[in-house]
């Protein structure tokens, strides 16, 4: 009897959930991983390919975090302050008179912030930490910066104005977090001396002593 009650409560709840969802605005159009976000007009058409692109394609291979300097120490990657742009461009005479750079100096001289549009927006109830991901993949697993940033941001080094190229939905995030990742070296020493998460279930230990665990999968880690 009790089991039945529990089940009925559950089913009722599911029904309620489903109907409230149906009552919501039209469901979002189906998207695949290849679907891009909208093309966005920015106040200055910033050429990412020129700054971060490969040398053979005319790029300068600047590290993403040279400009998006907050990414490794904050939740947000941040848009660089104009002073960062000016820091270099005040001594790059060759492009000084191009339309984009002229625009840049107009903002600088007027001491006005550039009203960039957000390209990668997450719901406001989500807490995503750039810092954690960068600490993990770049500083602990020594993966290349552009590869790591590209997990979520796509191939920005070939873009002019950045455009969203990943879903950034919860299911998309979880698809990564659900995979087993090694969290310790052989012998069980945590990689990067970090405590690992194993939620309600203790992760399996393989023969060499490496513990593999899923990424943090606790709701409250990402939902604030």
């Amino acid at each position, binding site marked *: 009897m009790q089991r039945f009650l529990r089940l009925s409560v*559950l089913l*009722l709840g*599911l029904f309620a959930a489903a109907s409230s969802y149906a009552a919501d605005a039209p469901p979002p159009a189906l998207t695949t991983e290849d679907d891009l976000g909208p093309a966005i007009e920015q106040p200055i058409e910033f050429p990412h390919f020129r700054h971060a692109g490969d040398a053979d394609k005319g790029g300068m291979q600047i590290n993403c975090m040279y400009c998006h300097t907050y990414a490794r120490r904050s939740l947000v990657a941040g848009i660089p302050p104009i002073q960062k742009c000016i820091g270099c461009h005040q001594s790059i005479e060759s492009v000084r008179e191009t339309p984009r750079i002229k625009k840049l100096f107009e903002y600088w001289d007027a001491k006005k912030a550039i009203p960039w549009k957000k390209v990668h927006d997450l719901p406001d109830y989500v807490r995503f930490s750039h810092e954690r991901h960068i600490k993990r993949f770049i500083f602990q697993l020594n993966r290349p910066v552009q590869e790591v940033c590209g997990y979520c941001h796509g191939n920005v080094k070939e873009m002019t104005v950045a455009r969203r190229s990943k879903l950034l939905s919860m299911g998309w995030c979880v698809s990564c977090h659900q995979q087993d990742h090694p969290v310790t070296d052989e012998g069980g020493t945590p990689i990067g*001396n970090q*405590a690992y998460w194993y939620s309600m279930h203790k992760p399996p230990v393989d023969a060499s002593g490496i513990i593999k665990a899923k990424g943090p999968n606790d709701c*409250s880690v990402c939902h604030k």
Partner: protein
Amino acid sequence: MSVSNLLENWSDFRHTHPVDDVPHNPYKWAMSIDLDACSGCNACSVACYAENNLPVVGKDKYAHGYAMHWMRIERYWDEDGRDFPDQGAQFLPMMCQQCEAAPCETVCPVGATNHTPDGINSQIYNRCIGSRYCEANCPYKVRYFNWYDYPTTDNVWPAEMNQQLNPDVTVRGKGVMEKCTFCIQRVTVAKNNAKNEGRLVHDGEVWTACQQACPTGAITFGNLVDPESKVHKQWQAQQVELAKDAQTKDKEEGGSELRGYRIFEELRPYPSVMYLERVRESAV
């Protein structure tokens, strides 16, 4: 997620928690509140409004019981039939007790409230469908429902006031249940900093907003599984054990001389908040 999957997880949860083979590691957040120090001044409650974006509902809605105070001070009088309360009043700060076997968690039809590995009863707002089962099942009555859209139609934070909102905490809309989270946003920041430095969170590194404000220092918060933490030492000194529904010391004849107790322990929610009984001088 299929129904069978849900059921499986759910029964698994009830079955495995709290048990010894899944210890809280490395964190179990808990609190102790000394009622002899608590003066009932309400600073904790206001601090909670400031930290957690709690809406001020106004007089009419307050009258309907829609107040959103995650931390409230309950005031009790002696019931000895005397003319004057000559031993003062009894104050009790009451907020979510972060039960280990939380009655609210099991009845949520959508899993919007669930247990985190570090022992907090989390509330995922965007998952909540507003069934209010959890509220009905909470013996402490510390869950609060958004009957109105406070941020928009009710305009609880008119221009400028909205600039005070804490960006680390979601502003809840209509139809969502909410409650004390042990200031999980502060815990998250502390855990993040600790991870960066390859260590665990130190005792005293995280303060809840109520604890930080409390003028008498009545509230202690920390990691119960850290043997060096103040909260651990207090629980230990008071012989209150998390996983028990009746403490051994309470079976002593003539009553225990220790002050620690948990409210509604007999209902077996295994709350994470220990209170220390108020003391009143027997000589006067």
